């Protein structure tokens, strides 16, 4: 679940609409949505387990069930749209499907943000999802099953926007710093978008740099490695190691 609308996202909208016409794109995007919703549902279950408030626990639970259901609907849609032997069918088949998204890091989102910011996050993310789903509903107008699915999901989504908004309003009345929480979440989202972007750029440069290292440094060493190569099939005697168990345990080699 990603949150704020970044300006780039808006600017890219016409481009995305065009890109959506490429073969395989709708299926791939439905698969991406499915992964994102599954990850969001897991975040929500974590929040449900951790919140101290009984009323929010139920709210988070229902929200999680909705997100996981959305994830399944998107997945079904992706499977129906995907051409046989496409990358999407392979991704859908892969049971590491959620691994590429899911929850990362030691702390679940709820613990990382705390309750108020988590609610701010939910509100922003759901509002953004509602806009995205509406956009998809337009893009997929020619696919009645998808349009129906998005209409139904839109109704659920409205409930999520409403409850999270109501919670933020109540918090504001209690004097909690809602505005700063919203900005903190927006900043976090922008920071994460920046990190994703810079990571990509960084990976690109690191890749180029590593290619140079590979050709220039590893090249000569590869000759040496080949000279010293011992291909030893079959059962071998273990290498002698006269270190004590304690000494060995200390070392990483």
């Amino acid at each position, binding site marked *: 679940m990603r949150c704020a609308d970044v300006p780039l996202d808006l600017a890219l909208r016409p481009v995305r609409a065009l890109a959506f016409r490429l073969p395989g794109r709708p299926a791939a995007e439905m698969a991406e949505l499915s992964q994102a919703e599954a990850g969001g549902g897991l975040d929500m279950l974590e929040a449900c387990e951790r919140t101290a408030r009984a009323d929010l626990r139920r709210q988070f639970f229902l929200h999680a069930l909705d997100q996981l259901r959305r994830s399944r609907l998107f997945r079904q849609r992706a499977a129906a749209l995907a051409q046989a032997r496409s990358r999407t069918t392979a991704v859908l088949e892969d049971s590491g499907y*959620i691994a590429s998204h899911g929850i990362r890091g030691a702390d679940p989102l709820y613990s990382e943000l705390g309750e108020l910011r988590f609610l701010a996050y939910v509100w922003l993310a759901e509002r953004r999802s509602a806009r995205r789903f509406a956009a998809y509903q337009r893009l997929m107008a020619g696919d009645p099953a998808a349009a129906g699915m998005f209409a139904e999901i839109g109704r659920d989504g409205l409930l999520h926007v409403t409850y999270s908004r109501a919670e933020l309003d109540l918090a504001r009345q209690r004097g909690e710093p809602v505005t700063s929480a919203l900005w903190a979440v927006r900043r976090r989202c922008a920071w994460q978008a920046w990190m994703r972007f810079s990571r990509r750029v960084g990976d690109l440069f690191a890749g180029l740099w590593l290619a140079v290292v590979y050709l220039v440094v590893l090249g000569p060493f590869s000759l040496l490695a080949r000279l010293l190569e011992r291909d030893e099939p079959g059962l071998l005697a273990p290498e002698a190691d006269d270190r004590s168990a304690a000494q060995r345990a200390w070392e*990483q080699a």
Partner: protein
Amino acid sequence: MVAACSEERFSRVKQDAGLPIRATRWCLAHAGIAMEQVEAVVWYEKPLLKFERILVSQLLGFPWTLESFRRTAMTWLTDKLWVKNALCKELGIRPERLLFGDHHLSHAASAFYCSPFERAAVLTVDGVGEWASTSLWQGEVGQPLRRLAEVRFPHSLGLVYSAFTAWLGFRVNEGEYKVMGLAAFGQPRFADQVRKVLRPTGDGGFAVDTRYLRYHQSATESYSAAFVDLFGAPRFPGAPLDPTTPEGRRYADVAASVQAVLEEAILVLCGALHERTGLTDLCLAGGVALNVVANRRILADSPFRRLYVQPAAGDAGGALGAALWAWREVLGGAPTPAGLVPGMGRPWPDEDLERLLTELHLPFRDCGEELLDHAVEDLRAGRILGWFQGRCEWGPRALGHRSILADPTRPGVQETVNARIKFREAFRPFAPSVAAGAEDRYFDLLPGGQGPAEWMCVVADVKPDARALLPATTHVDGTARLHVVKPQANPRYHALLTRMGQQTGHPVLLNTSFNLKGDPIVATPLHALSTLQASGLDAVYLGRFRVDRRDLPGADS
């Protein structure tokens, strides 16, 4: 042993390869100790040696390993090489208390130190650790584990089996079970071709012909064009697979062939190990020990008479082995039995479950003392149940703590569970659980296999007259991945099986892991409830409370 659990049960990322931060924190919290009180933390392998092996393979593959070098350099230089720093920082470990085992030593210790044997031969077989892919050991209580011999990378039974897994369109490190299941549908008519890829060396070991393989030079591909010339076009992931069609038949035959050649290689290793030790008890670990069909073959055809298999035979069990090794051999700890039972993970007391269900405003029934009666009534009515009881399991199998249960004697139950819940390949049968003492009525378990059968680590022949009674849990070759349940291992599940026996005459249940396809096994009641909503389960028993799917909001029809 106080607690043990895989990170995937917390992170919900199947076979999570990240650092086990949340699992570690939970274990400490459960034991009620702080990290400062921990005398030693043991990592299960030597990161520098592993890096060395990867780098050398890439040097040898120059200039065809550029892509693989870039990938591994990115992950190793940013992440994996600094495992010591990361662990110390994330978990607050004092660096001088962080120790490093050796990959195969960790596997060997996980098997021997959990086994009931005083002396035993130990065989560890996996993809690869640092350099070793197979090791032969001798264990004796009070003595350090003695490494007798090893086979080194790129010669690897696990990696060759994984290459076939990938060629068959399954996910490496996970779809190996499917290859094993598919093998029963085929004939090993490609065994000679497989022997070109993997051949015995005559000294008890084996060699692979790397011309057919790519795993030693690529991060993403495991077999080469020559492999495809030998076996034909690979199966596309997700494409239909029906062993009754000619194409499906070919895949099944290749699966049968690689399974047969794997078993041959393991038997040869067993012969060499027996010759060197003269012992008749064998402990097994490493990912290949999860091949329950090969384990039966060891009992049937090797010189070993009794078998112990570490249930978490894959790398998850490495953590346990590393800790047991350091306890016994580095810290000089007492040789007390490890005390491994199926449920070593997080428990959920009934009070917590009741409070949770109440706060969620979900209608539920408190079955109290009549829990077993209600569950048996459900099962007899053909309902499919989620069974969430006590502590989460150790290892990849559901053993009656986080299980999906059904009455295996009902016709069509396999199809129902597959269609409504697991969505898995129709060629894979489900496992039967049977109350200890009744297994002989239905199964011909080979002598020496009782221990592994308590952990679903070996297959047994289903007696011919029981096959018609238990179609859902009998594989096409007449075997079953049996789970024998003793009261001391899981009292409530044993009681359920016994009650089922009293009412139906058969103390047997279909037992499959409580998860949706692709998810890790459920760990918390919330995962269980979301699975109930998402699947065609009829009800879930959370402790003594029954929740009906019809009472959940938005349950899929």
